[in-house]
């Protein structure tokens, strides 16, 4: 068997190289998020947001932008024979799950690197909450990457892929989104960030991430069967 680390780096490297070359996912995700902020700005008719409303706007936007990337994460494997090529190689199949989840995690992080400062410019009066927010972003990204990779691998063989991904994904990420907004809301308080229940929400996210990473690792092998 090929060492899993070698295979992991090879698949992840391929995905990042392809995205850098083609820019098929990230620009669309970023554009979607920024456009949504503009809609919120005019729709809510507010020049600044705070507390749970700020958290809600941020996470709703990030989640729907993430779906655009999740939809595409296995498309090249499906359309260009990557699944067959991978199944013929002496590689542990869960490596594909881990590499795809890692690629998605990186896409989400790059998205947030651009979109969160934009959100702050559009809606926040004070930016002190952005530093602790990075922990929340990392926790949520891990969960979205694990669940998204799992759902995308199930939906990719369907012609209704674009419909199936949100239908399956959204119910599963509700607890994660509750925890993410719960942890984020006090960070956007008017008088500066507070840390009420911050640790508890992070713990909930960590547990949820752990469960879905394990589920993905356990069932992915079966999802690749014909």
């Amino acid at each position, binding site marked *: 068997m090929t060492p899993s680390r070698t295979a992991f780096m090879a698949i992840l490297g391929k995905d990042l190289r392809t995205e850098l070359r083609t820019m098929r996912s990230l620009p669309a995700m970023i554009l979607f998020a920024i456009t949504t902020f503009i809609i919120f700005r005019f729709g809510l008719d507010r020049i600044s947001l705070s507390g749970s409303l700020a958290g809600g706007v941020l996470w709703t936007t990030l989640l729907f932008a993430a779906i655009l990337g999740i939809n595409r994460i296995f498309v090249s494997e499906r359309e260009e024979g990557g699944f067959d090529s991978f199944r013929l*190689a002496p590689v542990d199949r869960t490596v594909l799950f881990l590499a795809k989840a890692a690629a998605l995690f990186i896409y989400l992080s790059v998205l947030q690197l651009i979109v969160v400062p934009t959100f702050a410019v559009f809606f926040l009066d004070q930016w002190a909450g952005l530093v602790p927010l990075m922990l929340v972003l990392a926790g949520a990204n891990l969960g979205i990457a694990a669940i998204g990779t799992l759902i995308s691998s199930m939906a990719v063989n369907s012609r209704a892929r674009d419909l199936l991904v949100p239908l399956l994904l959204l119910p599963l990420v509700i607890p994660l989104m509750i925890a993410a907004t719960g942890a984020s809301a006090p960070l956007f308080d008017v008088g500066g960030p507070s840390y009420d229940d911050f640790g508890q929400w992070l713990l909930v996210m960590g547990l949820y991430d752990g469960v879905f990473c394990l589920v993905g690792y356990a069932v992915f092998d079966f999802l690749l069967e014909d």
Partner: protein
Amino acid sequence: MTEVSETAILLRGLNRNYGDRPALTGIDLELVVGQSLAVLGPNGSGKSTLLRILATLLRPTNGEVRVLGIELPKDGWKLRGMIGYLGHEPLLYQDLTGRENLELQAKLHGLKPDEARARIDHDLDLMEMGRRASGRVNEYSAGMRQRIAICRAVLHRPKLLLLDEPDSNLDPEGRDLARELIGPAEGRTRVLVSHEPERAIAEADAVLRLAHGGVMAATP
């Protein structure tokens, strides 16, 4: 180490259905290591299905299947890396270059970097793709893609070659070049699906003729 038996392929009563429709019915076959098998038959007769089952990419509905002594589908994972599969699709990423595709394949098969580089250079030169390998696959002609796909299929030096119309899209020169890598050779075990019966039979030690799922004739 996996023990390789003298029998390369053993099929007993192999069936494969797609829903209610039988694609393969009652296929019996035995092929010895080092032999070439030509699989012939009209469109829809199950040739590609048979090849995908042998490649572990498709599960048989029932029947006994042993490839290189390994029972399928139960122990199919043991076969990974021992098969070179060339199907209808080239299994190449369109946005990578030909060389990058081969490098990825080499990493997935656990080849050491020096060995991988030497093999890639050798195979690309053999297929006269050395200078074109830095172009992206989506810029290639169908024939160039097939040349790279042949390099991909044999890069890890498989024990068994499963070839589904390997000459498709190749010009006469390409076909001649490909013979070195996938043509009949001493000790090379091949299963060749072809629509050119004369050539396939001339190169084969055994012939399997399929007719809409069933065996029309098996000639040792």
